[in-house]
């Protein structure tokens, strides 16, 4: 199954029946999949006139307590930042699937990880999204399911951030049921105030104290998310002297490079953040004493790099391999970069 289709199918299995999107490359396959599947599943599919309108409709369906989703490509996320800020501030759950492409500006439609900042550092205001970064089609399906769960659990928008390459990748997928804790019943949605006091879903706090209190409550929530749902994977990390750090598609290639280098006798491992927010800083910190140097590999010119540097705090060198323009790194590029880091620091 294609990555895009696996995400769509996982969303349906997670109970998503409201999907609104603007068809932006490379997210179009997901949009088309939902157009085919949702009406037959008793759901609502609506192609919107812009990502802004798509998010508006997600906002409305989410306010009514329905599991809602949109599909976005890089530039469209910029259009949505206003609405995403509102969704986060109003504490409305929804899932944003973001298949990033190369920028800045029009750039091209080839895969990229240049939207790391946009996903993890967010739009106007002072809020966070949970950002999940799959690196296989199976994981794209699993994380989409988890995204709906976490969105409901925390009443917060959750972004599944993949690149266009993962959306097009074809792999086997198993849609086994996830073992997730049960969620509390919804008791905040609007539907008409029948048999209860009326409800207002809003992100407006007129007074300083009211807004400060609200923002501090959100901060607590982000801290809870970080405690319970900071996800990462370490590959061949046990004795690694050089630790690669990469996510998504770049991490797939990095894992291949690790195998090659291990066969040549290099003690090298890979740390793959699965949640980009919350970022697994503590897991990196724990490895500082063991590791001689870190090497961050990204399909951009250095974005997650800043979070790695912040975790390592200058205690070890952090080298960087950045691939830009829409290319995916090759295992050879990564092995060459690791060898360079090894020469310098090991």
């Amino acid at each position: 199954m294609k990555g895009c289709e696996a995400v769509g199918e996982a969303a349906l299995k997670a109970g998503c029946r409201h999907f609104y999107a603007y068809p932006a490359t490379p997210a179009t396959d997901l949009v088309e999949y939902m157009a085919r599947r949702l009406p037959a599943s008793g759901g609502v599919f609506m192609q919107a006139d812009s990502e802004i309108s798509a998010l508006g409709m997600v906002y409305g369906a989410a306010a009514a307590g329905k599991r809602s989703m949109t599909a976005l490509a890089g530039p469209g996320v910029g259009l949505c930042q206003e609405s995403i800020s509102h969704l986060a501030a109003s504490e409305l759950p929804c899932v944003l699937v973001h298949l990033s492409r190369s920028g800045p500006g029009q750039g091209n439609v080839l895969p990229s990880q240049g939207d790391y900042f946009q996903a993890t550092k967010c739009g106007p205001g002072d809020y966070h999204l949970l950002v999940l970064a799959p690196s296989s089609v199976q994981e794209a399906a699993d994380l989409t399911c988890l995204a709906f769960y976490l969105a409901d659990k925390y009443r917060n928008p959750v972004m599944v951030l993949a690149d266009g390459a993962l959306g097009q990748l074809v792999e086997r997928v198993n849609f086994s049921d996830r073992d997730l804790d049960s969620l509390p019943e919804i008791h905040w949605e609007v539907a008409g105030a029948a048999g209860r006091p009326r409800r207002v879903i809003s992100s407006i706090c007129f007074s300083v104290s009211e807004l400060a209190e609200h923002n501090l409550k959100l901060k607590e929530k982000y801290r809870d998310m970080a405690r319970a749902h900071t996800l990462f994977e370490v590959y061949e990390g046990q004795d690694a002297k050089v630790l690669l750090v990469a996510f998504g598609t770049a991490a797939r290639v990095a894992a291949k490079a690790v195998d090659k280098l291990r066969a040549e006798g290099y003690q090298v491992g890979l740390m793959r953040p699965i949640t980009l927010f919350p970022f697994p800083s503590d897991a990196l910190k724990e490895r500082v004493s063991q590791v001689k140097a870190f090497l961050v590999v990204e399909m951009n010119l250095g974005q997650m790099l800043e979070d790695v540097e912040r975790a390592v705090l200058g205690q070890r060198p952090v080298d960087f391999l950045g691939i830009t323009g829409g290319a995916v790194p090759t295992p050879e590029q990564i092995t060459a970069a690791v060898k360079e880091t090894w020469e310098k620091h090991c």
Partner: protein
Amino acid sequence: MAVTLEKVADRPRPLYDVATHYCPGCSHGVIQRLLAEVITELDIQQRIVGVASVGCSLPIYHYLDIDFVCAPHGRAPAVAAGLNHALPGRAIFTYQGDGDLAAAGMGQIVHAAARGDRIAVIFANNATYGMTGGQMSPTTLLGQKTSTTPQGRDAQAGYPIRVAELIAGLPGATYVARMAVNNPGNIKRAKLALIRAFQNQMHNRGLSLVEILGICPTDWGLSPAESLTWLKNYMIPYYPLGELKSI
């Protein structure tokens, strides 16, 4: 002789008994009271969801005792469409001013009308940005002085947009009217239009839009009485009243 007192007028139930933030003479209070009356008469207080927008229209949720969602600037029609999909059969309306609907939100209202989204749009047009201090809005008349057109709006700043006519031209909009709340007769007619808009929406016939001309004495720099005259003399000739479309 014993006198029996009968109550002949009262505050409609959905209207909270609170002081509003609106300036003296402002039309928002009149329109919101009409909405409260219409909600009562249609008996929909328990199955209506309003979508508030940005500007002086925003605090409507402080004054009407019904479920509300507050939308980002201009996005109210899209939010209302999502609500309608999730809550078929409910009364769903947006309450938007001219700055919200006709500037930042023009894309949303046009496409909501093109899709025929089952929503009622209450469009309060006072030809200025009220909350931000009286700047030019898309419906500011030529010659009208605002804080960003201190010499009066000239054509270089753009021509005022006739929203009701624009929306009426789209097949998905099935009830479109322009009303005014400048005198008792017009207020009554505006109320009837609101009733028709909600009936049209709840019967799934498509998008309803009621544009309501109102006054903003504070930002127009006129007294309430002068403002009503100004509305009659300048706004109504450019924005003619009546039902433009009823299918």
